[in-house]
């Protein structure tokens, strides 16, 4: 591509910068408000204080909701990765019509709106006593996160040389041992990055959290929703700063895991 100043190209880039400002502006505007003194949200922020972080970490209800959400997110990641990897492995080793059924069912929760799933579970969980319980949230979030994990793991499995597993089995390893000792270590980075995505999806999930919340146990997103709806205090920007930190950490970790996966794959592809 030539590097001569091309008017079309300049116009395109100018437009793209405007779009990027639209994309970033709300986030850039809200983050500094976490350090602003008044108890309402103003821009530019006035003064400097860390009180709003104190208001978050020092408040028993915020802390309880955060711990509750963390617990749900960790369990969701665990359940999704175990259930998803098992099913994906079966899919990738030729499951016939079961595989087609699996793929069809996997995609339905992406197609059906979250509000429909939330309302359906609201009714069902009230009848079965699962409303507001960790188990209820984990099941709902696992269904939402499952496609992400399956796609990540399937991509890894399709790039790992399956003859390695065959070789292990020919040498007398059981299928489980061949998977555990040969295939799993090769796909582990993708499995872990799938787990990270499941964690973030669950931790951030607002719609199901809104409908399933019990009177006592609220998730962090539900507490945030109530705050925004009622009075919108600078606790929200403070949480935004913390969440952005977590997101960046997760994205960077996932990128490192992918890089690791790629560098491991190279010798197998050459040889």
């Amino acid at each position: 591509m030539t590097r001569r100043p091309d008017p079309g190209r300049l116009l395109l880039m100018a437009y793209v910068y405007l779009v990027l400002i639209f994309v970033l502006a709300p986030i850039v505007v809200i983050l500094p408000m976490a350090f602003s003194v008044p108890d309402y949200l103003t821009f530019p922020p006035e003064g400097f204080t860390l009180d709003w972080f104190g208001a978050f970490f020092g408040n028993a209800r915020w802390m309880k909701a955060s711990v509750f959400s963390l617990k749900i997110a960790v369990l969701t990641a665990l359940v999704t990765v175990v259930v998803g990897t098992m099913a994906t492995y079966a899919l990738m080793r030729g499951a016939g019509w079961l595989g087609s059924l699996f793929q069809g069912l996997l995609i339905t929760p992406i197609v059906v709106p979250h509000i429909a799933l939330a309302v359906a579970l609201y009714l069902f969980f009230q009848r079965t006593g699962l409303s507001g319980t960790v188990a209820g949230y984990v099941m709902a979030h696992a269904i939402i996160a499952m496609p992400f994990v399956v796609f990540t793991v399937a991509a890894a499995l399709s790039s790992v040389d399956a003859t390695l597993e065959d070789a292990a089995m020919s040498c007398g390893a059981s299928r489980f041992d061949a998977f555990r000792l040969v295939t799993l270590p090769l796909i582990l980075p993708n499995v872990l990055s799938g787990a990270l995505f499941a964690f973030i999806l669950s931790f951030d999930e607002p719609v199901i959290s809104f409908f399933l919340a019990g009177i006592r146990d609220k998730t962090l997103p539900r507490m945030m929703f109530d705050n925004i709806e009622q009075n919108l205090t600078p606790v929200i920007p403070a949480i935004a700063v913390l969440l952005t930190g977590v997101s960046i950490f997760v994205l960077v970790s996932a990128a490192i895991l992918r890089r690791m996966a790629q560098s491991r794959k190279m010798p197998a592809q050459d040889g």
Partner: protein
Amino acid sequence: MSPARLFQPDGRALSRAGAFLLMAPFFLLIGFAFLYPLFSLLSISVTEPQVGLQNYERILDNPVYGKVLLRTLWIALMVAVLSLFLAFPVAMAMVSSGGAMAVFITACVLLPFWSSVLVRTAAWAVLLQRNGIINDALQAIGLIEAPMRLLYTQGAVVVAMTHVLMPFMVLPIYGALRNIPADYGRAAAICGAGPLRRFREVTLPLAMPGVLGGFILVFLTALGYFITPALLGSPQEMMIATLISQQLREFLDWPFAAALVGVLTLFVTAITLLFSRVFRFDRMLGGQL
């Protein structure tokens, strides 16, 4: 469906029983916490208070509900069109710029994607409030004299939803554009086509599957959107998801709420099946980093 291309079975095949056992936890989970609850909700809509379609007739008979449905379609369409106009040039820039620039644009598009929807909605509430930055700026340049009501309007919902859903449009378009060989554009240039004609007759037709996939994904997601309309919209101008929530939580009218869920779900499923060929879920989900 299309992701089959990604899922090429390989290696020593499992026995059917083994495959079933490995998939059993997934089938149990999706049956227990998705299929059965959805089915029983939809069955309420046609069996309570008595068997029949009266809940659905109520949606059609009362013009208030018809208006909500039309408004929902209209808002979702606007969000999808706006997202397309914002996303297409960004995807083009991602493909055509090299190295650090491409990484920078991708990061700018994806960082908000992984930041909380609630945080972004709160940010728009702050920007649009009566004494917020946008009102201040409009007053400073003399466009308006007194602060305008921007929050709790349809415009606020459209802008904030576009902000949240635009990345879903960028990714499939980027995927389609990246697969167009650069030779095609060069060949068209040698044949004398100008940049506009190259765009119209080479780039655009080849990008169409990505455009269509992204457009439908954003449109369908916007149809069922709850959080943003609930927090930034006006209670007089509800969308279907906020209406469902109101019927459920304020009026405790389960059968009617179930019928509204039924209408939404059937509509979304029908459109998805109609366009199932343009959906490359693997591209939309797997290629996010």
